[in-house]
């Protein structure tokens, strides 16, 4: 942890972005279970629910923004760590593991909420896959900052 690229604020920010994307999916699932009498309300909500996957995918872009700005801000730190003897491979692994841990914890929290609300557990699995892909892509970018 001591050698992590993450500070408390970064961890919090990543948690919030993951939570936001999962919660959005959860809200969609919840809206689908509502039996509304009002046609207007139903039509309005359907215009969003019909595009649930697309909207979720668009919002996952905030996670891309997080990874992008995180690495950009840390480029000096990565370079300095390598200067003082750290290895790029270890930095990348630590970064990947930390992102995956935060994702895992947030997903666990969502599983608990899904079980509590009796929702389908697999409905947000595709988001986990997408986030893992984002993590792997951003981890592959760590090497870019080996040379300052």
């Amino acid at each position, binding site marked *: 942890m001591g050698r992590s690229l993450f500070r408390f604020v970064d961890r919090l920010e990543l948690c919030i972005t993951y939570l*936001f994307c999962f919660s959005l999916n959860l809200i969609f699932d919840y809206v689908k279970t509502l039996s509304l*009498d*009002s*046609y*207007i*309300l139903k*039509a*309005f*909500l359907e*215009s*969003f629910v019909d595009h649930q996957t697309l*909207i979720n995918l*668009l*919002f996952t*872009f*905030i996670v*891309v*923004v997080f990874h*992008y*700005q995180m690495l*950009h*801000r840390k480029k000096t730190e990565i370079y300095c760590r390598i200067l003082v003897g750290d290895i790029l491979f270890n930095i990348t692994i630590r970064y990947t593991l930390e992102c995956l841990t935060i994702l895992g914890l947030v997903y666990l929290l969502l599983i608990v909420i899904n079980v509590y609300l009796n929702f389908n557990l697999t409905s947000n699995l595709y988001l986990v896959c997408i986030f893992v892909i984002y993590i792997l892509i951003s981890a592959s970018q760590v090497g870019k900052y080996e040379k300052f």
Partner: protein
Amino acid sequence: MKNFKFFITKIFLRKAILSIAMLLLFFMANYTIFTAARSILSTFQGYQEIKYMDQEGTYIANLDPDSNIDIDAIVENGTQIVYDYLNNNLKYAFYTDGFIVSLPNNDDMEISLNYMNEEYYKLNQFELSQGTDLDFDYQLDNNKEIPILIGKGLSKTYPVGSTIKIEDPVLEQSINLKVHGVLKKNAYHSNFYALNSKNYYNFSVFLPVNEDFIKHANIDLQLNGLMDVIILQTTKEKVEDLSEIMKENLGLKFNFFSQKENYEYFNEYYLHSLKIISIITLILLVIITGLSIWSALVSIRLMLKDFTINLLVGLSYSKLRKIFYSYYGILFFLNLIVVFFITAYSRYGCWLRKDATFVTYGVFGLIGMDWFALLVVFIFDIIIGMIIVENMLRKIKKVPISLGVLQ
């Protein structure tokens, strides 16, 4: 302009991910507002349209939800007995639509025949772009021409004065129609029970019906006409008697709601729904605006050095503010174009699908409510743009120039 070009190409576009994120967030905000504004306006238009019911002594028939339609259970001449009772004792507005007929036209659309009686015609006051009002006192015999109104989409193929011969689906015989008038373009009718949903009359034919016509029509027209029949200038006791007669002869239970009951129902049902839509939209907008500000501040974090270097070499804060406004202006403009094209595509899709009840005329098929919703989006964009730019500048001003350059 030089500064602006430099900022766009050398600063903003160098971190394209941030610009794309902003574009996506603004798109979602714009689309949410567009959908909400259009829903609210469409409902409001429907609400205005049914205001004619807001009169003392008006009752609207409504089939009881527990009543199932079983045509076999309807006694012989049952519907005619009900109409005889209506003709002798009450004043009623009759309207039914959706009877499809094959009628050649330039756009190759399916034509819907709509039937209405004189009372309904008076209540709605259809606006005509050409021609004269309908005459309901015609005789129904083989050679006589029935005066009709047509939608704007049919006016080129069938100008005022032309005659049309059709196989009428409710009379089940050939009749001759004479075009008396053309409705204004995009004339519409809102559904009683879904005020935000509209049927457009651009490819419709309006047939006036009188007692004789209803008498000779098949049970489909007679029964459909009773489903939403509006009883005018009457009392609760009289409509209860009518309900009894309908129950005896049709085996169906009809409820009749007064103007006051309808008004309360509409107020409770629609205002409540509109309030919820507004609240949901507001919450979504707050979230998206929050995310946009977060994304803008992230941009500041990453581009602070570039901004402060430019400030150091003589760029003033007011010029920087102008550059930011121009940059976000371009992003909003791109989003407005996308929303515009999505709407135009969905309107044009009705023409491609030959969906006659939804096709509309307008610039790229867009009608008044679409333009209104785009205007709301435009106003929102100005507000959110101001919030973001001022926040960015506040953040930049907080950092001393020397410290920013060192970053």
